């Protein structure tokens, strides 16, 4: 058992031995470790906030500057990015969507239109949820936070 002996130096016979009770301390630490390991969350969970276009609420009553109508459509062939009258097709790389190319294009659009915040992500029915989430994630990465999700027409 751990203890601290302090020599008073004088002739007094008062014991000043201090014993730190290590056993309950170890018990408590062991219990805490067990509890914390049982309740530990090893996977961090987050959220991507989206609105449903066109019926989503408009919580921003402030005056909005005229911006580009930006639509990203997910098809079986790849991405179709429509910025106003222009549209760019980003085909798939093998089986995967070319997310890196999409970010590049979105960042270029954002650079030309710094006030642009909104983008509509449309997807075909057969598109997997994972691909939709990837597209939304890339829009957020390109500083386009107002993402609306809708179904692709046709």
């Amino acid at each position, binding site marked *: 058992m*751990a203890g601290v002996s302090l020599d008073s130096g004088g002739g007094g016979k008062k014991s000043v031995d201090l014993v730190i009770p*290590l056993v309950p*301390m*170890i018990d408590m*630490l*062991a219990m*805490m*470790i067990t509890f*914390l*390991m049982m*309740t*530990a*969350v*090893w*996977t*961090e*969970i*987050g*959220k*991507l*906030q*989206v*609105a*449903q276009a066109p*019926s*989503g*609420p408009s919580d921003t009553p402030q005056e909005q500057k005229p911006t580009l109508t930006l639509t990203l459509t*997910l098809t079986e062939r790849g991405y179709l990015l429509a910025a106003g009258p222009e549209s760019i097709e980003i085909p798939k790389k093998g089986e995967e969507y070319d*997310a*890196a190319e999409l*970010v*590049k294009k979105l*960042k270029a659009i954002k*650079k030309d239109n710094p006030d642009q915040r909104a983008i509509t992500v449309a*997807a*075909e*029915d*057969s*598109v*997997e*949820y*994972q691909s*939709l*989430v*990837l597209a*939304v*994630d*890339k829009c*957020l*990465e390109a500083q386009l936070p107002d993402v609306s*999700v809708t*179904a692709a027409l046709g």
Partner: protein
Amino acid sequence: MSRPNLENVIVKPGKRPGKRLSKSKVFGAKFSKGKKVTNVELNLTSMIDIFVLMVVFLIQQFSADGDLLFMTDKIKMPEAANYEQLERAPVIQVSNEAITIEGAMVAQVDDVAREELWNIQSLEEKLRDQKKAFDVLRQAGATGEFKGDINIQADRKVPFKIIKKVMYSANQAGYFNINFAVIAGSAPAAAADEGSEG
């Protein structure tokens, strides 16, 4: 007259090895008369140090986010890098088999996929009930405001056709702030490179 050396002649009665055996490394120790130390001390200081470090590390890791969603093997959530902190809201779980809200099953995915209608009637009703319950609680004096938040915890392989219908039903029931629950992931290297170049 010299006296004989008695140390080698007079020995203590009992078992004793022969000369060769006593020199043996294997068997010699059996007849060793040396005192073996049986008092083992635990290094308590280092043990407590490790315990304390583990407790500090685990407390840092501690998060209540896991309680917001019920993790199940049937739902493998997608990853995203640009996520926000998840908040408490009704959870719609969409696996490849069923759609549940707060653990209660409301529809089968196959049935929903076959249906032509955009809304899922049972889901919409459940969500309306939840909203009503919230209103009743608020009238009873509970604090908080209805923000219309809903968390969708869907499997990564679920087709958008199902998600679309879930979102539409939520919208019809008055839940406009839709959140996709994701697992925190890191940005792919290619995208990160692009970002650094730009």
